[in-house]
């Protein structure tokens, strides 16, 4: 892990109070007309915690992410991020506060190169204005070089050096997922939201991604919320797991307890399997 990015990240994380939870999500209700996407979910994410959200399809996991990043506005409840209420703020304001996110279906800027995509992650750290951009000398130039140094460190960290100047639309799926993670990291997040980081990946790609996620938590000390369907990954990586179904919380706890919870097994496998083997165990 090299200097420019580490230094930048250290500065960002110094602004976060370790004793308090990074995120407090309390009693949030979100519905679209008659459809209840989230009804009364509460959870907290502590500093340096890897928090996983699981649940069957349509349980409201991605809706939680959309509330967090400001794409949806909940009808009730509060969301406090680094001590401030973020309900009603626009996505770009929340992003500027230090919440970074990857998407379930890759949302990269496919015409731009890997470098440009990562540089876009630095957008809210760009201080120079339009007039400086038109001249592109002095401050704008030195800032661009500094941002580029950070971006190059992330490229090293994610081992995507050889794709640097490729338009991301041409890259393989697993690499695109990595680039999207890189774009989120470039934002110097205080909280990282990963929406199905290993979906559609083969075993090798999954293991690579799992290693990056662990490195982000352990080396970079960035708290993570992860939505994932791969139970092996969730149970191995997460510190705590929350299970949701039909927009309501079922249980929250360490992976070991959650996979033995009869309610969880019922939600996933149905009534008659409630006494079957714990989830994530080899079958």
């Amino acid at each position: 892990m090299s200097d420019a990015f580490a230094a930048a990240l250290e500065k960002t994380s110094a602004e976060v109070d370790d004793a308090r939870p990074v995120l407090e999500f309390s009693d949030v209700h979100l519905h679209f007309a008659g459809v209840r996407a989230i009804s009364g979910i509460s959870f907290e994410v502590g500093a340096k915690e890897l928090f996983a959200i699981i649940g069957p399809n349509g349980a409201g996991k991605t809706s939680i992410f959309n509330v967090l990043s400001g794409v949806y506005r909940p009808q009730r409840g509060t969301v406090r991020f680094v001590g401030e209420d973020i309900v009603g703020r626009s996505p770009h304001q929340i992003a500027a506060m230090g919440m970074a996110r990857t998407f379930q279906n890759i949302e990269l800027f496919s015409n731009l190169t890997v470098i440009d995509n990562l540089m876009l992650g630095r957008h809210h750290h760009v201080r120079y204005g339009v007039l400086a951009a038109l001249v592109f000398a002095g401050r704008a130039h030195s800032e661009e070089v500094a941002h580029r140094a950070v971006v190059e460190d992330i490229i090293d960290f994610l081992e995507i050096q050889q794709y640097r100047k490729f338009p991301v639309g041409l890259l393989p799926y697993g690499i695109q997922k990595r680039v999207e993670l890189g774009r989120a990291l470039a934002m110097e997040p205080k909280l990282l939201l990963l929406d199905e980081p290993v979906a559609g990946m083969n075993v090798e790609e999954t293991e690579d991604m799992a290693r990056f996620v662990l490195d982000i938590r352990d080396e970079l000390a960035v708290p993570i919320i992860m939505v994932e369907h791969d139970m092996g990954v969730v149970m191995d990586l997460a510190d705590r797991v929350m299970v949701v179904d039909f927009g309501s919380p079922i249980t929250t706890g360490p992976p070991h307890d959650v996979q033995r919870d009869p309610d969880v097994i019922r939600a996933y496998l149905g009534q008659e399997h409630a006494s079957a083997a714990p989830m994530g165990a080899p079958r």
Partner: protein
Amino acid sequence: MTALLTDRGGRGSRPRGRPELYTSYSSDIALLNTPAKRAGVLAIVAAAFALPFAVSDQVLVLLGTGLAMSVGAIGLNIVTGYAGQVSLGHAFFVGLGAYTAAVLSGDPDGRLVGFGLPMVVWLPAAGLVAGAAGLLVAPLATRLRGLYLAIVTLGLVFLGEHVFREWDSVTGGPGVGRDAVQASLFGNSLTAGGAVLSGAQKVYLFALVVLIAAAVPARNLARSGVGRAFAAVRDRDIAAEVIGVSLTKAKLLAFTISSFYAGICGALLYTITRTVEPNSFNLLLSVRFIAMVLIGGAATISGSIMGAMFVTLLPRFTQQVPRFVPFIGQGVTGGGLLTNVELEAMLYGLLIIAFLIFEPRGLFGVWLRVRNYWKGWPFSY
């Protein structure tokens, strides 16, 4: 290896024969980041400055018009090519620039409103007035997208056409128009012939200098954080917002800067063509600008210039066609199956379709193919 990486900020030296090995980020993000680009651009600029002494005045006026149109095409490319907001209203902003320049520079004692101010005032003012109008129109773009935005900006052209036609005291009215005044710099006329240079030569050089002064900042903008934000808004607006790009701000900026360029283009055109006719800022002009962007290459500055030159010079070639093809007549009233004017209109359409299907990156894409062919020559890749 580490020695290469330690020099991160400085200019960095480049080993000979390795044009794409960069030893500093600074030289990687430079405007002309390979020796070939530096030499090529230098040669083109030198040739452009030498041209007025080699060709006739008549051709020079045409080329000068192409240079002025290039400024406008760069403007449209910023909002449509980079930021992805389709605008059919470009002619309106060009008209605003032309009339701002006309009024500010006009004869104070003449038939129409005029203030007799020098070029250093009216040229930037033309851009600023058009830019301010762009800023006022931009909120529409934050509400609408795609075809809806195209329709609304189309309305702008008709509004503008009406105002330009009816506001006699400024525009002179349809069919009459207003005269150009002498554009002058430090007391030297930029349009009248002098001892050393003819009028056409001066106007051409003036347009060339303005184009360079407009194109370099546009290229800078494109490679800066602002240009990246535009591209993000164009490619995926929701993702752009989630990573911290304000859509409203990006669209406002794109429209304002684009309109500023359109205004400068209008003022330049007015200097070159010597008269302004209120009917000329119509939908056809907007469509010609779109043709320039699509033929030249969306989201490229050099493509904008290529496209503008191509579209401006096209009539010159279609004028020659009747001489060689028997069933094509000359002029609007000329006989034959179709006239050269009709042929020209058809060619715009055909070229736009052909480029969209066969080379969506436009003339710039053609250039890339040629360049890559010779890079790999004699191998195919």
